[in-house]
């Protein structure tokens, strides 16, 4: 919302440094985005009178103009000669003259020059050249009552001004008007706010003889008012009005449209004009649209309506306007218009919001209606429009306005307790001080029995204010938030992470320590991503979809971290970053039990090792498991979706599958355009959290010498290293301290389907030095167990 200081000053004697005023507005919650000096760049442009118009002897597209400049640009009594290409002026007209040396608003410097042998000592200006309006045709003819020789800015009252650009929050529709901002600012500055009195000269014909209004849907319209203006001449607006509108970013169109916009900006009440002669009997009906009804709007678009749209219809019940959003083309004001039916109404916020959104029609008017306009402000808006039209369009008015009550309801007053105010604001205000903040902004305080406080009537221009806390905010705003002070509350609890949150940090540190960097892929996937990553069969739809995705590529929620990390590797490879090693710690979204309200969100770690194989991924698994103290974790060979079928394993922890490890299926890599292999590791973090939160059990370190036994077995390929380790671990108790896998190899000598697997075992007793017999006994037990349980023969 752009607001001119001079405009606000019509409502209150607001004085002071504009930058300080801006700071005050910001402190009131009306955040000033910028404050700038404004006003027309008209230095050097003066009012001149045309003394004589003569043809140019050498050219017929330009004429010679002799001007009286009142001694401002030529010696007194001496006419000033100008060459001019426009022919719309007559002798005696007052015109704007840019004198020599003037820098025009567009940057052009006016110099003395010769045109086909004739001197031109300046330039006469069009409205466009003055940036008053878009009209570049002809010279701007000024009001004949102005003084010749006077600077134009002074003559038109277009003085230097200050323009505040204010970011108005959604709860302050009142501040979408010059008067509303002025009211708030005046209250803070302690100066009086008032609307300038309007004195209307009305004709004898009563308005209700020319116009009638019927509101059929009270929910759509709170109040609806009209007035009638006769003898309208559509023409240019007065310069000062055009200048103010221009400063506020509104283009000048013609006097009727400009006054409409002017009143909206000034009072925050959007209004609409109809050509009365195109509205049979001046009769308007307000109702909700029926499905499929059509209306051609002002922009000549055919709008198909629904039951959610509000309409203004004529006597025949034909739509002639889309309530609060856009007028209809059939009753539009034109050059021929002589009688205007003026409407000001208050619409249901939701209806306007829905309609403008659905049709993509957002305007200054719809924005105000959506936020809520003042139901009791429409008479003032109608009258203000009429006063300006009488002054600048020479209209005559009929007597009175016709206002029909729709669904307007007076809101009940709000009980305000002094104690509550001081509690929430940390202040010690008394009832009078509180009233002193509320009444200047229109809240009426009435005495009430019981606890000290007030019964407060909220002004109709503050739809946001409904409860006691809303009033506390108003008091806080005008008292100043900073005066509440700063105090740090001290909770009685310690600040600490939950065990799960600490564990998550430890997982991160472990992964970082293993050389992995953290990626953050989007949790959205394209429907084809899961099949491409080999996670589901083609056409299978197990993931949860979004109802209104922005793009199809982001229309489902991930069920695995694999596709996101594959994309990250692809992105890096395409930028020649080879061998990236990334992890992500994030949630996947799985279907919960039938009838569940929300999906199951599983927090998971995903690791991708570009240019590495399943071997490195599995080594990493063991390193991470050791780092996290997951002692009983193992990999169990198994083909898994998306992974290399003979290079993948389930990660099993304490008997439960918690993840997977291996290598991404080469076909999947190919689909993602990834060269080389890619190691993969993924695990749920919930089991890790459980493990990390059980304290490690302490075992005294033995100081007696240990002894190592190395054994190699020939065993069938079907027996896994895990199986042998389990056998050896069990058989070696209690002296066996650890089993280490050394290597495995196959050869023709060993035989088909068999391999040699070697282990190193360390034996140690807690209380004595081992004897040769101890070692030999354990050795026999190990060999025996491997033979019996796994058909493994010592090599």
């Amino acid at each position, binding site marked *: 919302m752009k607001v001119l200081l001079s405009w606000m000053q019509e409502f209150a004697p607001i004085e002071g440094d504009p930058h300080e005023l801006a700071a005050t507005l910001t402190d009131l919650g009306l955040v000033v985005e910028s404050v700038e000096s404004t006003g027309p760049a008209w230095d050097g442009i003066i009012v001149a009178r045309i003394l004589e118009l003569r043809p140019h002897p050498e050219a017929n597209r330009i004429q010679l103009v002799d001007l009286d400049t009142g001694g401002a640009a030529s010696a007194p009594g001496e006419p000033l000669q100008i060459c001019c290409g426009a022919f719309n002026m007559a002798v005696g007209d007052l015109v704007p003259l840019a004198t020599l040396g003037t820098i025009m608003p567009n940057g052009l410097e006016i110099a003395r020059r010769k045109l086909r042998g004739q001197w031109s000592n300046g330039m006469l200006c069009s409205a466009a050249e003055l940036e008053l309006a878009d009209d570049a045709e002809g010279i701007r003819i000024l009001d004949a009552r102005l003084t010749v020789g006077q600077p134009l800015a002074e003559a038109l009252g277009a003085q230097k001004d200050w323009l505040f650009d204010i970011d108005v929050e959604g709860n302050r529709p009142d501040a979408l008007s010059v008067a509303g901002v002025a009211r708030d600012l005046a209250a803070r500055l302690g100066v009086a706010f008032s609307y300038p009195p309007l004195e209307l000269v009305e004709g004898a014909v009563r308005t209700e003889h020319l116009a009638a209004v019927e509101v059929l849907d009270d929910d759509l319209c709170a109040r609806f008012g009209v007035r009638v203006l006769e003898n309208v001449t559509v023409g240019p607006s007065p310069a000062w009005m055009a200048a103010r509108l221009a400063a506020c970013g509104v283009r000048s169109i013609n006097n009727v449209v400009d006054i409409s916009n002017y009143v909206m900006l000034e009072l925050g009440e959007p209004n609409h004009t109809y050509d009365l002669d195109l509205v049979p009997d001046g009769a308007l009906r307000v109702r909700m649209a029926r499905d499929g009804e059509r209306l051609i709007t002002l922009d000549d678009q055919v709008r198909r309506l629904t039951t959610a749209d509000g309409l203004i219809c004529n006597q025949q019940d034909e739509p002639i306007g889309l309530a609060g959003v856009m007028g209809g083309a059939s009753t539009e004001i034109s050059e021929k218009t002589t009688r205007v039916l003026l409407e000001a109404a208050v619409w249901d916020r939701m209806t306007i919001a829905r309609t403008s959104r659905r049709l993509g029609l957002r305007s200054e008017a719809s924005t105000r209606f959506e936020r809520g306009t003042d139901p009791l402000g429409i008479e003032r808006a109608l009258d203000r429009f009429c006063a300006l039209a009488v002054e600048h369009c020479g209209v005559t008015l009929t007597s009175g306005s016709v206002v029909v009550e729709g669904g307007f309801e007076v809101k009940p007053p709000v009980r305000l307790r002094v104690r509550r105010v001081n509690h929430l604001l940390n202040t010690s205000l008394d009832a009078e001080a509180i009233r002193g903040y509320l009444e200047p902004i229109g809240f009426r305080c009435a005495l009430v029995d019981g606890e000290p406080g007030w019964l407060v009537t909220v002004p109709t221009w503050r739809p946001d204010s409904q409860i006691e806390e809303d009033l506390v905010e108003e008091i806080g705003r005008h008292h100043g938030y900073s005066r509440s002070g700063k105090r740090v509350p001290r909770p009685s609890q*310690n600040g600490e992470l939950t065990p799960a949150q600490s564990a998550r940090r430890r997982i991160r540190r472990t992964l970082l320590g293993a050389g992995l*960097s953290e990626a953050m892929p989007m949790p959205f996937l394209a429907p084809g991503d899961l099949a491409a990553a080999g996670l589901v069969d083609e056409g299978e739809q197990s993931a949860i*979809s979004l109802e209104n995705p922005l793009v199809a590529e982001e229309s489902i929620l991930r069920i695995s971290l694999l596709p996101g990390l594959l994309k990250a590797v692809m992105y890096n490879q395409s930028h020649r970053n080879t061998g990236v090693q990334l992890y992500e710690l994030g949630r996947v979204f799985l279907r919960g039990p039938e009838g569940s309200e929300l999906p199951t969100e599983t927090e998971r770690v995903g690791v991708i090792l570009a240019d590495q194989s399943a071997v490195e991924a599995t080594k990493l698994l063991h390193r991470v498991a050791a780092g996290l103290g997951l002692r009983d974790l193992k990999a169990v060979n198994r083909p898994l979706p998306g992974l290399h079928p003979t290079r993948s394993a389930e990660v099993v922890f304490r008997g439960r599958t918690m993840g997977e490890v291996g290598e991404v299926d080469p076909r999947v890599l190919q689909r993602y355009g990834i060269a080389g292999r890619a190691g993969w590791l993924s695990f749920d973090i919930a089991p890790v959290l459980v493990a990390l939160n059980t304290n490690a059990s302490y075992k005294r370190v033995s100081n007696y010498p240990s002894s190592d036994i190395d054994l190699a077995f020939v065993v069938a390929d079907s027996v896994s290293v895990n199986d042998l380790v389990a056998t050896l671990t069990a058989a070696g108790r209690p002296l066996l301290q650890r089993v280490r896998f050394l290597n495995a190899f196959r050869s023709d000598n060993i035989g088909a389907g068999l391999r040699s697997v070697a282990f190193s075992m360390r034996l140690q007793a807690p209380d004595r030095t081992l004897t040769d017999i101890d070692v030999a006994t354990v050795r026999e037990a190990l060999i025996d167990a491997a033979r019996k349980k796994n058909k493994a023969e010592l090599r």
Partner: protein
Amino acid sequence: MIDDLSSFTAAALAAAERAHTTDELHQLELIHLGKEGPLLAARKALGSLPAEQRKDAGQALNSAREQVETAFAARRGELESAERAAQFEFERLDLTEVVDYSPVGHAHIVTQAWEELEDVFLGMGFRVAEGPEVETDWHNFDALNIPKGHPARDGFDTIYVDYGPRDEDGRSNTVLRTHTSPVQIRTMLTQEPPIYVIAPGRVFRRDTADATHMPVFHQIEGLVVDRHISLADLAGTIEAFTTAYFGEGFSSRLRPNHFPFTEPSAEFDIQRPDGSWLELGGCGMVHPNVLRAGGIDPEEWSGFAFGFGIDRLALMKFGVDDLRDLFTNDIRFLSQF
């Protein structure tokens, strides 16, 4: 044999000189000074000499022994130092040829900022609350005083999810949470006041990605509910956080603003030591409707809440000027922090 002593000494000294390695020297030392050597034999023979000769002969033997031992020790020193020098020359490494390109792990800067923020608030006695990323629209909107049809609900540009029970018109009631505020509701519903929590998390908006917007981003939320909590407690908490996170010389201010879930509401700004201001986030006193939705009596308890973006802090800290850079997962970006 005493006659031999001088020739023995000369031979031993020559032998020490002749040795080329410490091993050789050790062998020669055994020959000349060892158990089988002539000196030890001569000492054993001393007993057979007459007493008056014994003293002189003994002294001569000792002096010869000392002379030889000194010579061997000196030679050992020479050889050891030469051998050390040779070994070091042999083991010489050009350490500029040693490099390691194995990757080093880097935490994402959003995670770094996230944990740093958590730590600041942990130090102020807060705990960390969490909630689901897919939420019911009741938790995300209704409970936060944004009922169905409320214009503010549009402003959140919500992504709806095809899951869970639908309303009568068949519309989904399940959303990707548009802010971390539903965690306020979940916390109030599961925990008795006093409540001092922060809730960092991932949030979603139906936004096209550009330099300052992402459809997926991160926020942190704060909620305090206790007896006699006022606007001053909010301002003080924001100020304490500001100093702790940004450093000495930074300060904060509140200015009126509007949010459906707080009343009074404020925006909080941070002032940098150079005097410039940075708009950081929104805050306010918890709206009584929100307290009620959380099962808390607004007459007995009051509270404040605040929230702001984590990603933006991460960007500012490192001078990154495009939000999208955070989420391309380019290792050249990730490994800078």
